[in-house]
């Protein structure tokens, strides 16, 4: 069934405000998405009714809160079709998930001379943790080149895979260009060489129906706040066989079995990787976001977002001097562009005054900016609460801004 967009917009209270005297058009969804009332109420509800530290209390509130928290782990496992809730680790976000993985996987399996393959379109958070690992353990980082259209050079990827490769870590969708990477092919090639694959799903999880078993990825990481959930919650999915072997990341409460000064044994999965009190209120809000998305249907969401994206690409073409950065054959709702020779900062500043929230700059992907020899881009990112009318207003605003800056 087609989505009722006006009804969906009514679920997001922040969208109805004015900015600089103009109705807000929020197109910075790749940075973070807005939250529906159901999510806001669920998180606030924790503090109003069940707040209590989880997992360790014998009292009523602690039990209720723990059950609500663990219920979300079941929801996440169902949402991504994980084989077991043991494979769902709660983190603070994608960045922490990747730091956890690079540390624990690296300390367990990697030694000097080993190689990790990344790509030229990764977000800094899928580059720097691996560089830190590289410095610690003498591991080498190999980078898959990006083509002029903003796609991965798959020939280049095949050439990088070799007997020294220990892991491939790649974005499912590019945060700058919206390129949907051929992750099925990457996983097949890597697995044929006995190499596990981590997918950075930060930009994919709210667009596409993700099935980790069908994808057969070894790790999948994402953030709650980019899928309408509160900030400060994320997930590391990992196949049990890897997680069981991996050393813990942070030490503390919850992640232990027995502690003594002569030696400590660690808790089972998933708790081994969840030291300290988690952001349980955020996690419970995250559960409400999953409910909300499942109620609307990921297939329906994708169908609408794809239609909106195609409409935006078509309409934006008419703006004189517009140049799209990345025009992959398969793209999600992210459009990066430049307006003539104008600096992205100028375009973004003027659009802000007209009520538009867009992002400008390097989008935490400086290597990709260097690849295209640009200082940055203007990025409009669309989700299911955006409308064709907003696209029309954006085009109108771009015409005005373009004239002012030329």
């Amino acid at each position, binding site marked *: 069934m087609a989505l009722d967009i006006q009804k969906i917009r009514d679920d997001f209270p922040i969208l109805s405000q004015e900015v600089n005297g103009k109705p807000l058009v929020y197109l910075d969804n790749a940075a973070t998405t807005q939250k529906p009332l159901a999510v806001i109420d669920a998180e606030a509800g924790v503090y109003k009714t069940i707040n209590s530290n989880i997992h360790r209390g014998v009292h009523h509130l602690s039990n209720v809160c723990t059950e609500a928290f663990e219920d979300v782990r079941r929801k996440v496992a169902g949402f991504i079709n994980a084989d077991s809730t043991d494979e769902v680790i709660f983190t603070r976000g994608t960045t922490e998930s990747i730091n956890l993985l690079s540390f624990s996987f690296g300390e367990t399996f990697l030694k000097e001379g080993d190689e990790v393959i990344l790509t030229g379109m990764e977000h800094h958070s899928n580059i720097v943790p691996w560089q830190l690992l590289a410095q610690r353990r003498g591991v080498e980082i190999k980078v898959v080149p990006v083509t002029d259209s903003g796609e991965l050079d798959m020939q280049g990827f095949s050439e990088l895979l070799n007997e020294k490769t220990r892991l491939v870590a790649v974005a499912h969708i590019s945060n700058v260009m919206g390129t949907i990477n051929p992750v099925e092919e990457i996983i097949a090639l890597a697995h044929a060489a006995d190499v596990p694959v981590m997918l950075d799903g930060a930009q994919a999880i709210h667009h596409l129906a993700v099935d980790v078993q069908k994808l057969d990825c070894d790790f999948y990481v994402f953030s709650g706040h980019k899928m309408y959930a509160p900030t400060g919650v994320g997930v590391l999915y990992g196949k049990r066989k890897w997680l069981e072997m991996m050393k813990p990341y942070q030490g503390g409460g919850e992640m232990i079995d027995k502690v003594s000064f002569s030696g400590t044994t660690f808790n089972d999965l998933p708790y081994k990787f969840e030291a300290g009190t988690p952001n349980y209120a955020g996690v419970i809000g995250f559960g409400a976001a999953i409910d909300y998305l499942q109620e609307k249907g990921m297939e329906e969401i994708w169908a609408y977002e794809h239609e909106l994206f195609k409409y935006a690409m078509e309409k934006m073409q008419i703006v004189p001097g517009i140049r799209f950065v990345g025009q992959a054959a398969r793209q999600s709702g992210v459009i990066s562009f430049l307006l003539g020779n104008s*600096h992205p*900062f*100028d375009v973004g*500043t*003027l659009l802000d*005054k*007209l009520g538009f929230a867009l992002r400008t700059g390097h989008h935490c992907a400086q290597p990709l900016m260097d690849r295209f020899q640009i*200082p940055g881009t203007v990025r409009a990112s669309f989700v299911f609460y955006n409308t064709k009318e907003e696209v029309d207003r954006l085009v109108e605003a771009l015409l005005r801004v373009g004239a*002012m*800056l030329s």
Partner: protein
Amino acid sequence: MTIKEKQQEVIEEFAAFDDWMDKYSLLIELGNELDSFDEANRLPQNLIDGCQSKVWLHAELKNGLIEFQGDSDAIIVKGIVALLLRVLSGHSPDEILETELFFIDEIGLKEHLSPTRSNGLVAMVKQIKAYALAFKVKMG
């Protein structure tokens, strides 16, 4: 004109506009009209690399007064650079050090001088003061 009087003058010019886009049109115009930056001074030590945009600043002491040259790769930032230089260039180190910049706030461009804006302008103002201090010490 004192720095304070110059600031008042800028405020009056901007007071004529109540629409944001008109204010920014004026800034773009000022950016375009800014004296071209001497390429010989486009040196790494004169570059202030903001996360969003770049600013270049060069300073020389002439007859006890500091003359600044500036530039930016973003035209709106360049317009604000032009305003800062119009207000501060050609004054003594003491005058610059004693100055409180109030005109940016008054004309509604405060957000561009916020430390979180990362466009290079905050660092530029600090650098202007640093030059003033350095020249003051040099003059004895």
